[in-house]
């Protein structure tokens, strides 16, 4: 290999090794370190693991986070699908382009500010309850509930899910759907028998990203969900920021990564699995 080729490969490997793999592997190692007198010491002990895995509140958080992220993923997939279907099949190419451009905008507005907006909108004396109050309804408690958390998660994930679903639906060869209709397949059946299987990979990837984003977000469950109970990312923040217990935070992070890895592997297997029998 000549120097030219090496000049493009080596710096990347060194840089990403130092600042991507390095941190991740160090974090895994750190989960076995000890903290004595507020100082971290290199060690290989299972104490942090033993402590975290035997605490009920950790497992409460774990199942709560997993449940909320799954719920959000299901909700986002179902809320987004009709919208994506319209954008893919019922509007012109130009409208679709514009819609996708609009959907990119939220990524460049601060997620914190959007969450703060929801906080004000959903509050007991906020915009929604004021509106409902005028109709002699409510007030409803929406903040510091799982509902608030899901609203926050959806704020983060829904634009991405709509974009990914739209793109995967729009890439379907429409001739196949028309062929099915031509062979006497009713529209609803064509959706399940032809459209969904063809768009499967894209839909699963959209759901996977939605899950990863919700699973790892600490803003929505903290500010809109009131941290009751705290999710795993909130545990990481609290343990790191206030307790100085980085190794314990690392344990939580490794738990999260393991879970995500298993879920991503399953999702990818589902997405690319070939149907063997009809």
């Amino acid at each position, binding site marked *: 290999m000549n120097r030219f080729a090496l000049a493009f490969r080596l710096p990347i*490997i060194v*840089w990403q090794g130092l600042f991507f793999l390095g941190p991740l592997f160090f974090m895994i190692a750190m989960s076995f370190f000890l903290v004595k007198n507020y100082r971290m010491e290199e060690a290989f002990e299972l104490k942090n693991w033993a402590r975290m895995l035997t605490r009920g509140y950790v497992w409460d958080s774990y199942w709560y986070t997993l449940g909320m992220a799954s719920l959000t993923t299901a909700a986002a997939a179902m809320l987004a699908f009709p919208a994506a279907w319209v954008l893919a099949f019922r509007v012109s190419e130009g409208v679709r382009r514009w819609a996708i451009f609009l959907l990119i905008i939220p990524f460049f507005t601060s997620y*914190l500010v959007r969450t703060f907006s929801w906080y004000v909108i959903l509050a007991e004396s906020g915009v929604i309850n004021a509106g409902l109050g005028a109709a002699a309804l409510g007030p409803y408690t929406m903040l510091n509930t799982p509902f608030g958390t899901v609203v926050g998660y959806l704020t983060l994930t829904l634009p991405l899910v709509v974009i990914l679903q739209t793109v995967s639906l729009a890439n379907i060869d429409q001739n196949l759907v028309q062929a099915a209709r031509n062979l006497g397949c009713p529209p609803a059946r064509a959706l399940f028998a032809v459209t969904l299987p063809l768009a499967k990979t894209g839909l699963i990837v959209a759901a996977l990203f939605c899950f990863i984003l919700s699973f790892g977000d600490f803003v929505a469950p903290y500010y809109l969900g009131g941290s009751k109970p705290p999710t795993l990312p909130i545990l990481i923040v609290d343990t790191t920021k206030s307790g100085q217990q980085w190794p314990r935070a690392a344990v939580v992070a490794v738990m999260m990564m393991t879970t995500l890895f298993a879920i991503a592997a399953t999702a990818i297997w589902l997405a690319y699995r070939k149907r063997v029998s009809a």
Partner: protein
Amino acid sequence: MSARITTALLLSWLLAVFIFIFAPIVASVVFSFNSDRFPTIPLGSFTTRWYDMIFADVEIGEAARNSILVSLSTSVIATMLGFATAYTDYRYRFPLKGPYLALILLPPTIPLIIMALAMLAWLSWIGASGQLWSIIVAHSVLTAPFAMAIIRLRLNQIDPNLEAAAWNLGSTEWKALRSVIMPFCRPAIVSAACLTAAISFDEFAVAWFVSGLNKTVPVIILEIVQGNIDPQVNAIGSLVFLTSISLVVIAQVFFISRVGRA
């Protein structure tokens, strides 16, 4: 007839999804000009008080300077990393290319909070945390994949003989890179620079963990939000939005339109 009703229902659904997505953005811009400390219906009077406050705030000014420095440096480094990997992927085949590409493409699949903890721990361990450049390093790793993707897409459109044609006409590999590959990729390079800057400008989790005392704008927002209800957040958010969206529009003009055309 029923088909039209179905379409109408679906269009309303689409509209509802858009309203849900844009409600908080519109609300924050509206609230930023609203006099009430805790906005509700009916709205209070128009004011620029929150903007006056943030412009007068020394700490926010400092954070804005930090943010600009971080996002500009990030965009330069991330675009270079992205270009190098995109070009390597385009031009070479080699054993372990899969892991090599994974090394640059994987960071976005790992939750930011985990990256934040890992970066904090590692950078402290090697004695490099709490600096502005700690944020820059972390943000470069996080944003390089986006630069790589944009530049790689552009390289998909190149005539594979173009670079060989330059060698054939007397260019060394370096000269061909500079006089053929880079000019061809220029729109994508500009877009990548804009997008990575915009992402870095908004990122708060990693910045919060590794920044120490050198806060960026999103970190300030996070701290304000933790305290109490303060409409300054809306004003800052609106300004950040304006900055980011300008970068995106530039990226769009330079790249997305051209990819669409080709």
